[in-house]
């Protein structure tokens, strides 16, 4: 449908955007769903495609191997899909093939992990990892105000991912602004088992803690189990990503988990919606712009017991 005669950008409206347009074939490739958030990314992407009768989604096997993912994108290019939504295992490594797709006239929507070249994507949808760290750090600062000796621990995700590094940097920067720093830091691997294993070690290593930031709510299930097992509750914890489980904990008010910072698991779903709009030459309805923007950075709000009911409905079941 990309050879649609209507070359003029439409004056977008919600109804107009919802209306069925030409058939759009979208290829989606992401990392292996080896942790809850990525599982949610996949499910949300598939769900988004199912909402639209005019979207035909091709999902490639999730992989952490750049070589395989490149091959998948090449396949999409060969097949002449209308758009590609790509959550790369490594932004830089997938850049050349994304450029190749763009050069072949296929718009690429880059999700979550950013390419190293501006020419590689038509639109980039990013969560704000640095912002997440800042939000978490700011919340911790607020809660610990006046306690300069406070012990702050951090349970990161996979250390080798740039997004983890960004989160940690944001967190450290925010803490610095109120005179705190990270005393104990461990890295889990975004899984429940990893969260549980590293946290029980962390608790053992740090007999007294005032605040913990855990990067990911899915590994948070394990983190909370470890805290429970150890019978510790002298601190409060801030989560990350914003799973429904975590929000229910916050809602209960009985948990050490007091807040979580949202990192939307709907990024790929957004990517798919945007891909459809781009291919059908539609624009975003509430923007004046006649085209889909080049870059969408999602907010990283803090969810606490005060506003949890507002976020719970859209939270992902990890």
């Amino acid at each position, binding site marked *: 449908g990309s050879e649609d005669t209507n070359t003029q950008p439409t004056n977008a409206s919600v109804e107009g955007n919802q209306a069925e347009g030409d058939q759009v074939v979208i290829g989606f490739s992401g990392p292996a*769903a*080896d*942790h*809850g958030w990525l*599982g*949610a990314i*996949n*499910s949300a992407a598939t769900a988004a495609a199912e909402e639209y009768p005019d979207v035909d989604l091709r999902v490639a096997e999730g992989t952490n191997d750049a070589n395989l993912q490149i091959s998948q994108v090449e396949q999409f290019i060969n097949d002449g899909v209308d758009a590609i939504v790509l959550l790369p295992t490594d932004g830089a490594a997938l850049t050349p093939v994304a450029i190749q797709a763009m050069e072949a006239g296929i718009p690429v929507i880059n999700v979550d992990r950013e390419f190293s070249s501006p020419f590689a994507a038509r639109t980039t949808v990013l969560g704000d990892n640095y912002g997440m760290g800042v939000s978490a750090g700011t919340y911790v600062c607020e809660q610990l105000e006046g306690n300069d000796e406070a012990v702050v621990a951090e349970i990161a995700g996979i*250390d080798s991912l740039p997004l983890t590094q960004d989160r940690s940097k944001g967190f450290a920067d925010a803490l610095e602004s109120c005179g705190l720093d990270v005393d*104990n*830091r*461990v*890295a889990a*691997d975004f*899984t*429940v*088992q990893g*969260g*549980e*294993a*590293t946290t*029980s*070690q*962390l*608790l*053992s*290593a740090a*007999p007294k803690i005032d605040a913990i930031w855990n990067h990911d709510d*899915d590994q948070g*299930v*394990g983190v*909370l*189990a*470890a805290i*429970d*097992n*150890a019978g510790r509750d002298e601190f409060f914890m801030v989560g990350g990503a914003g799973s429904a*489980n975590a929000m229910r904990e916050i809602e209960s008010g009985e948990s050490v988990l007091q807040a979580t910072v949202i990192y939307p698991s709907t990024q790929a779903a957004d990517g798919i919606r945007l891909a459809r709009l781009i291919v059908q030459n539609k624009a975003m309805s509430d923007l004046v712009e006649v085209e889909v923007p080049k870059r969408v950075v999602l907010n990283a709000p803090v969810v606490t017991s005060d506003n949890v009911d507002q976020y719970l409905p859209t939270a992902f*079941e*990890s």
Partner: protein
Amino acid sequence: MSEQKTKAAEPRTDATDEPSSHKSNPVRSALRGSSGRNLGLIIALALLIVVGGVTSGDRFLNVENMLTILRYASIIGVVSIGVTFVITAGGIDLSVGSVIGLTTVVASLTSVQLAATQSSWILMVIVALAVGAGAGLINGVLIAYGNVVAFIATLAMLVGARGLAELISGRSTQIVSNRDFLQVMRSELLGIPILIWIFVIVAAAGWFLLNRTTFGRRTIAIGGNLEASRLAGIKVKRHLVYLYVLAGLTSGIGGVMFLGRTTAGTSTHGLLLELDVIAAVVVGGTLLIGGRGTIMGTVLGVLIFSTLVNVFTQNNLDTSIQALARGLILVGAVLLQQRFAARGPRRMKS
């Protein structure tokens, strides 16, 4: 693997140490061979503990922290016992990690949890064990009767079980809501958490099974010389199936422990656990080509790795440096163990 060399060449070297002293010394024969190897491991463990004590002092050397190490070790430990049997018989099981994931997912399904609430939490345990044993049965039948190489059959199970677990769970984490179950799994006995007890019991049972029963003898015999075992009238194929079922069963137990410890079932449980398990078993001194297996060694291997992780965390080490150090220590432990394996018997003599 290149232990072939070791196997072919080593016995002679060993032999140099105990020539033709035909007297039957019960102590010596009880300790036969393995003692020297275990000594090396014990020294490695002691070194680690000293390092931990020196670098972290009381924070490391206290009962709570020791229990933390043991709790962490317990799941890997239980599964390692099962895998020790498989490896002793000359096989391999790469699927234990995935099978754990699958058992936790199935046992924490809403329907199972519902049924468990209505009857007894034991049901969840039974489901987990049954799923584990079932996966082991498939492995075993493929290997023994389908003649599929163990590496490939269990690699296929690794991939397949994980996929099935994702499919069943829809990739979401299922929270365990059965309070009785959680309470039991978190209880203590004589001040020691139940998880650790499970490890102790499985290890003791494994030791007994391997060293004191016909089942154990046959396992070693098959690993040492499959053809001779067959000629001696052992039903080798059937025995191999039992062994993989046993490994599957310990994965099931591991799954139950995971459920209790993390209060959740998910397809990502047990991810890459097989590497830790095999490393622990092999560092412990069980030969990858089969014919020699040691439960004590496996337990020590597991403890070394768990202590290592703990020491790393205590010292707040960067994960990359942890990886580097872990590689070095892995090699170091094996070298140490080998040194003592060669020396052990000679010492015994004097």
